[in-house]
């Protein structure tokens, strides 16, 4: 028997929970069909999470692809079908070739499982990032931080997930929430997740309140790592600093919780608990276009005393 799961017409980090909610009562070895025929738009989070979702199923799931030609064409340009063909039984018509590159897709969906993949991702993004950040009125200083952010988030997969994941980078105009353009990095894996990763730390004692939310607070807010080495945990701390400087947002979902570093322009909750479960970790970074009137932030203390 196959269980049909409806994919919302607009698929992003919030609406993806609707998909997961429908899957909650379904056993992992039950065949599922994700019905994405009516999807009109999907964020990088939505696309990478769809691939990740397939990895969590014991039996290969089916996916009914978007009927709207424009949507299917975009998914193809984002590299979605190239990976989905290996993870889903695809139903419906979709472009077999990606066609011309989409200038808004800075990094099409790319699998990350080892250190060399991170080198590749960073190398590919650097030149494009410089042009794109200029378009968003962010000065050249933002470019290196952007590549560092991408590198550190991808490394979380290599170091902690225990299996490969996906990354995608895209710009789009975020009319509903911001009325400005944004650049978004989405990284998703179906690995062990933050809670299980931190539980492997030597001497880790579980407090009365130890759950996915507590694990996310430890890792994202306090820079705790499963490694005893005090130099660990700097990656996410650095990402937070960078995003603070450029008014960006960081959201990390793992298991049943989601934590966000929320800038003024957004009204997200800092911590959401009791969400429908999803294995691994999913990270989304959003950097908004800088309004012309906004001053450029001070560089860090510079290479001087």
């Amino acid at each position, binding site marked *: 028997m196959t269980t049909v799961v409806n994919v919302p017409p607009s698929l992003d980090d919030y609406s993806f929970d609707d998909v997961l909610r429908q899957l909650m009562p379904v056993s992992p070895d039950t065949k599922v069909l994700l019905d994405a025929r009516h999807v009109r738009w999907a964020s990088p989070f939505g696309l990478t999470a769809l691939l990740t979702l397939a990895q969590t199923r014991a039996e290969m799931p089916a996916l009914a692809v978007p009927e709207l030609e424009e949507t299917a064409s975009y998914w193809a340009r984002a590299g979605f079908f190239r990976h989905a063909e290996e993870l889903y039984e695809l139903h419906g018509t979709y472009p077999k070739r990606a066609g011309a590159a989409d200038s808004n897709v800075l990094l099409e969906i790319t699998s990350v499982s080892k*250190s*060399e993949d*991170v*080198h590749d991702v*960073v*190398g590919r993004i*650097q030149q494009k990032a410089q042009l794109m950040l200029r378009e968003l009125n962010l000065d050249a*200083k933002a470019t*290196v*931080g952007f*590549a*560092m952010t991408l*590198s*550190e988030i991808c*490394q979380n997969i*290599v*170091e902690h997930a225990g299996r490969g994941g996906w990354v995608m980078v895209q710009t789009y105009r975020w009319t509903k929430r911001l009325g400005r353009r944004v650049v978004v990095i989405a990284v998703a894996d179906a690995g062990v997740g933050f809670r299980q990763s931190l539980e492997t730390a030597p001497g880790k004692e579980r407090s009365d309140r130890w759950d996915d939310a507590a694990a996310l607070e430890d890792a994202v807010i306090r820079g705790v790592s499963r490694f005893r080495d*005090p*130099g*660990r945990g*700097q*990656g996410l*701390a*650095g990402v937070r*600093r*960078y995003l603070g400087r450029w008014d960006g947002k960081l959201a990390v979902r793992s298991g049943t919780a989601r934590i966000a570093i929320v800038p003024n322009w957004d009204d997200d909750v800092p911590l959401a608990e009791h969400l429908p479960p999803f294995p691994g970790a999913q990270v989304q970074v959003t950097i908004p276009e800088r309004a012309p009137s906004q001053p450029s932030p001070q*560089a*860090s*203390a*510079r*290479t*001087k*005393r």
Partner: protein
Amino acid sequence: MMNHIDLSSVLRQTVACDLYSNLVTRPTGAAVRDQIERLLGDAHDRTLTVIDFSQVSMIDFSCADEVIAKLLLRYEADDPPRDAYFLFRGVTEEHWEAIEAVLERRGLALVLEQADGIHVVGTLSSEERRVWEGAQQLGRAAPAELAKALGAPASDVQRSLEALRRRRLVMRVGEEYMVVGAHRVG
């Protein structure tokens, strides 16, 4: 004896790919540090090694921790493998954010060579910084001479100089001390 290590060359040897000019990821950082240590192994007992970032596009936090922090920690330990000192060259704004973060996190300091001279950066007590800068002014000096210049007790200055030497920020030459890289600039 002085060594020059071009990090981009070391990186290319390490990842076996000419296309990469970014110091990213912990495994890469650990491999680069291993290679640096191998090169140091060929050197004499006391060495000053210039670690050159000029051809490196960027370095991330994880890699900075592996290459810089762990290298410094090993050589400022009580039993360093050899009497090695480091001068960092070609460090730009693009590299600084990650380097600054790891120095702060680990409580470390290093000597940078820049167009306008050498500078000590990172975590130092105000006394250590004052003594380092005083030593830099004098070029090469005995503790008593430096203490006189700073108007400080000789024993305090001697203690600070020894602490700075252990941290690989000043070198001891006979009874005198000089800051790392002092001879490199006029």
